[in-house]
């Protein structure tokens, strides 16, 4: 029996999706191994998933990098505002990145997959057409998103997830920086009026599904193969699901009278320039942790190439994406 820990509430897309994942995988495994699924932090809470899987409290775990800031320094590069146009693209880039560089911070794990949420965008009560409009605006942003909000000139407020709707309604915050998907998830689409589509600075939360390496090595080869094949299938599906709910979020927002603001190429370049210090600071941090500057530059170059490639794939395969491909 294998224990799969997921910190999400049982009703969230991520929980429902992985409940299906476990059910189907269990069918394929036909009793050779059974996966027990524990959602809603009943076994491991978000901050404990990585360590809990490493030490065998659970065997498989799902969480995102922001909960253990510093633990997976190389992978955290994917959380930088590097200009991801959709969850589909970013998810594939994250997996390519892992497969290419195999960061040693993940040596204790067998990686099932990475996926990312759709890119975080600025969603506000008052229109934001240029950087200056953000000045003095209070935007919900904990952690790294807070850093981004700050370099863009707004004031980050780390309001808790459950308080977003009320805080917006009462004007405690003037906007959020989250995926469009949350418009529906938190009902904030009823209140928010504007979305500024600046996907060139699009950043994501990177999720991982990891398994304890020792436990994985102890599984028979046929079981490993079934799981690996199934993960591949699933990875094709999951990023598309993210795009879908992101689209639904946007739809909900528009139905409630919301408006998407597209910015010009020149303005977009200013935003990109504004967030550059975050990437530079992180590079310094990585160097201080013992990585080489050239190494980090390699990563960045690779990520940018893969974004181009998968953005092309998304268009070619006609995968719908919520964000317009403007600047």
């Amino acid at each position, binding site marked *: 029996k294998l224990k799969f820990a997921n910190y999400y509430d049982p009703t969230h897309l991520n929980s429902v999706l992985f409940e299906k994942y476990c059910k189907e995988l269990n069918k394929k495994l036909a009793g050779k191994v059974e996966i027990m699924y524990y959602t809603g932090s009943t076994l491991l809470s978000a901050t404990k998933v990585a*360590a809990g899987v490493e030490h065998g409290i659970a065997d498989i775990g799902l969480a995102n990098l922001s909960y253990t*800031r*510093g633990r997976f320094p190389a992978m955290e590069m994917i959380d930088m505002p590097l200009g991801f146009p959709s969850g589909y693209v970013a998810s594939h880039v994250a997996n390519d990145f892992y497969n290419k560089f195999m960061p040693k*911070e993940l040596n204790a794990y067998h990686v099932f997959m990475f996926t990312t949420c759709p890119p975080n965008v600025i969603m506000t009560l008052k229109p934001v057409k240029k950087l200056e409009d953000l000045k003095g605006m209070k935007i919900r942003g904990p952690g790294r998103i807070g850093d981004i909000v700050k370099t863009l000139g707004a*004031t980050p407020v780390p309001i*808790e997830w459950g308080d977003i709707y009320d805080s917006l309604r009462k004007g405690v915050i003037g906007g959020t920086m989250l995926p469009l998907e949350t418009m529906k998830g938190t009902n904030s689409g009823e209140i928010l009026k504007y979305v500024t589509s600046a996907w060139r600075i699009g950043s994501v939360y990177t999720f991982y599904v990891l398994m304890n390496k020792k436990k994985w090595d102890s599984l028979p080869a046929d079981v490993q193969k079934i799981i690996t094949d199934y993960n591949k299938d699933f990875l094709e599906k999951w990023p598309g699901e993210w795009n879908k709910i992101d689209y639904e979020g946007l739809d909900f927002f528009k139905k409630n009278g919301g408006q998407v603001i597209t910015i010009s190429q020149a303005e977009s370049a200013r935003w990109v320039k504004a967030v550059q210090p975050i990437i530079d600071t992180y590079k310094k941090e990585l160097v201080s942790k013992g990585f080489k500057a050239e190494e980090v530059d390699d990563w960045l170059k690779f990520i940018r190439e893969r974004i181009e490639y998968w953005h092309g794939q998304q268009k070619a395969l006609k995968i719908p994406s919520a964000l317009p491909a403007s600047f």
Partner: protein
Amino acid sequence: MEKVFNLLQKVSTVFTDIGGVALTFMMCLTVADVILRCFNHPILGAYEMVALSLAIVIGFSVPRVSIDRGEVQMEILLERLSPGNRAILNTFTRILCIGLFVVIGYNLILVGNEFRSNGETSATLQIPFFPIAYCISVCCFLECFVFVFDIVKIWRGQYE
């Protein structure tokens, strides 16, 4: 022996008072954050600071509360036993508790080491986690000393 016990008591009291200072800090920080938020200047990372202060507030107060026997216990069976049997049973539970807190305290050092080598920090202010794990570990070991002294007190007939 008396001297060592007095020292333990003093250290535990100082620890509780540190906890009290941390609780006062927690309250003031919350009030300041709420007020400043009205004026558009929330304190960045206030939640994190408040959460991490809780470790000081609670962790540092645990030994003193145990000395004062402030935890919830059931005494239904205990009341019906002879003093000798009661002493044996109490010693037994103290030994179990020592075991528990040695395990927790020692492994918190390991967890702290892991936090330190991974460089894990809080999300917004990037406060490192490892010193907090070490602090709680120290409190757990102090708690063990309280239990050791409980055993001494039990056999001197001063426990109840």
